[in-house]
């Protein structure tokens, strides 16, 4: 399994925890628009949980640049790998 897949799997677990009413797919293309519970409030919390789980830190500009989960996974992979 590639580094990206491992990270996506961990993030998927967090998303299932945080957005308990969402049962759709979680992929590299998933965005906040796909998940009803994913509002600006829970977004910050999601980022915090991902940072804690993966042991990474995103900078202010990095976080602004994420267009979908894939961007986030790739940014995390750079730090983990």
């Amino acid at each position: 399994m590639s580094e990206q897949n491992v990270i996506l799997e961990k993030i998927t677990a967090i998303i299932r925890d945080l957005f308990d009413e969402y049962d759709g797919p979680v992929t590299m293309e998933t965005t906040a628009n796909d998940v009803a519970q994913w509002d600006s409030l829970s977004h910050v919390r999601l980022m915090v949980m991902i940072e804690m789980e993966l042991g990474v830190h995103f900078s202010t500009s990095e976080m602004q640049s994420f267009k979908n989960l894939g961007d986030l996974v790739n940014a995390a992979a750079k730090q983990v790998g």
Partner: protein
Amino acid sequence: MTSENFPWRPPLSSNWGERLKIFEAALIEGRDLDFHAVRSLAGQRLTTREQLRLERFANKLLKSDIPSPTFAPVSIGLLGNRTLSYLPAPLAAAGLARGLAISSVEAPYDSVASYAYSPSDCFGKPLDAVLVVLDETAFANKRPILDRAAEEEAVAAAEDLFSALAAATLEKSQCRPIFATLPAAQQVSSAELATPGTSARFRHLVNLKLAEGAMLGKWLIWDQAALASRVGIENWLDPIRYHAAKIPFRIEMCPLASDSIAAVLAAMKGKSARALVLDLDNTLWGGVIGDDGLAGIRLGQNSPEGEAFVAFQNFILSLRDRGVVLAVCSKNTDEIAREPFRNHSEMVLKESHIAVFQANWNDKATNIRSIAETLGLGLESLVFVDDNPAERERVRQELPMVSTIEVGEDPSFFIERISQSGLFDHLPLNTEDISRAESYGGRAAAAEVRAKIGNYSDYLSSLEMRMTIKPFDGAGRSRVTQLINKSNQFNLTTKRYGEQDVQRIEEDPDQLAWQVRLEDKFAQHGMIGVIIVRKDGAAWTIDTWLQSCRVLERGVEQTVMDALFDTARRAGASTVHARYVPTDRNGMVSQFFPAFGFDIVERCDDGSITYSQEVDQYAPHTTFIDVSIAD
């Protein structure tokens, strides 16, 4: 991260998730819940995941209409110049751990000025309190460096804003505000406080104004600054999200902040703890008074540990000065337990400080209930402090409404854990508050002893005890000798033997000499018993039977006695003889042999009693200890 911030809470129980599921299902089906159990689940050391689940559960519980007498409803407004949207869910969760059902309404973003100065009311209903969290940017006045006049003006303007908010809160929401103190600023120099115009100095001056207003009863304060300095300002603040999400402090800190706010709300609702119930041995002094004696316990100048116990006692006395009622709950003989209070020169606490003095050999949960009844206080207003994890577990199982603090076993941390717990949080005190402890008197009276409560077998089986019985050997010799010469209380004959005597017994084929060790899921208790039996053909005689008082009422003596009679039977012995030699210390075992069915043979002139028991008449016991016997 979340769990590390709550060292005073008990660790997460292994079945936390399953237990919460049961409550979630009950909530959906509208069934009654065991609210005390909910409270103790909420009060454990949660990780991020459990925290999230608890928050969701708390929100559902608040929305349901199941009456919950355990949780006092509190409804608060949240007002700030930064977003406080991250607080309602953790506040609801934190409330459950402190016996509160906290529902909060957040004011629209940055409506501080309109709430303070215009007729508009963003909450639109009466509340129990309005929590106001302002950071430095809420105070607009310019403060040029070294310009004291401008600084004074800025502080006066801040005070005006607080007064206007207090007036608005009273008028619109019919309650008082709770102002958050301002956390310390990053320091450019170590002269910040001495440099007019700096952020650090401004925040300090504003905090003093908040304190003065609180003393006058104009408002309450939530000491955010103290909490931030406890965790470290770098951990408290999150510069990235301060700018990105307009949060006043780090999101991960929300559970801790909420718990600390809940402590203020609990104090406001009269739900703070009122009494502190204290264990004695290894809690107020080092060592066991019954075994080590007045000269042997560690208290004061003779050791670093002793100094820590003195500091702890001074702290306890300072709690009493604030009105906290003190009680003692100890497994000890009453007279012996009182000895340090009366005769130890380093003892800070005296009998006159203790309202109820409960020293006996009963189960602590039962004794704590008696203490509450004697004081006329509810169990939920009691805090229990004991260095022994098994005792804490027992009290948590039987009396979940009592707050049992995870003080650990090192006395150097006791003060910190009790302070951090916030259980004794209080509003600014008045003279009536501080006379409360006095009103209970220093009777140091013992409460009536009640029947044992709860299912004790479940508790014993949950301890997962394992016992090892081995003949004396070289490795255990010095500890065996130590126990033989130190044990006073649980000691039937109090015979003393030196190390060479012990070695002689070890090598003597006509003596059975056992060293008994015990461990459970909390601790390795090490060697907790020594048995010496003389084998004289078919007649065996118990020469020495002693046990440590750390592990009483666990079924230890039953397990060992069963093993002894089993061994005697296999060896072809027919009778076991025994003797009890009373001393001024071993009254607790005066009924030891009769309880095992031994018959009295003779009452001797020196006060000792001899017994005997036929081997084939002996009835074994049901115990909860896995035992292994090595030859």
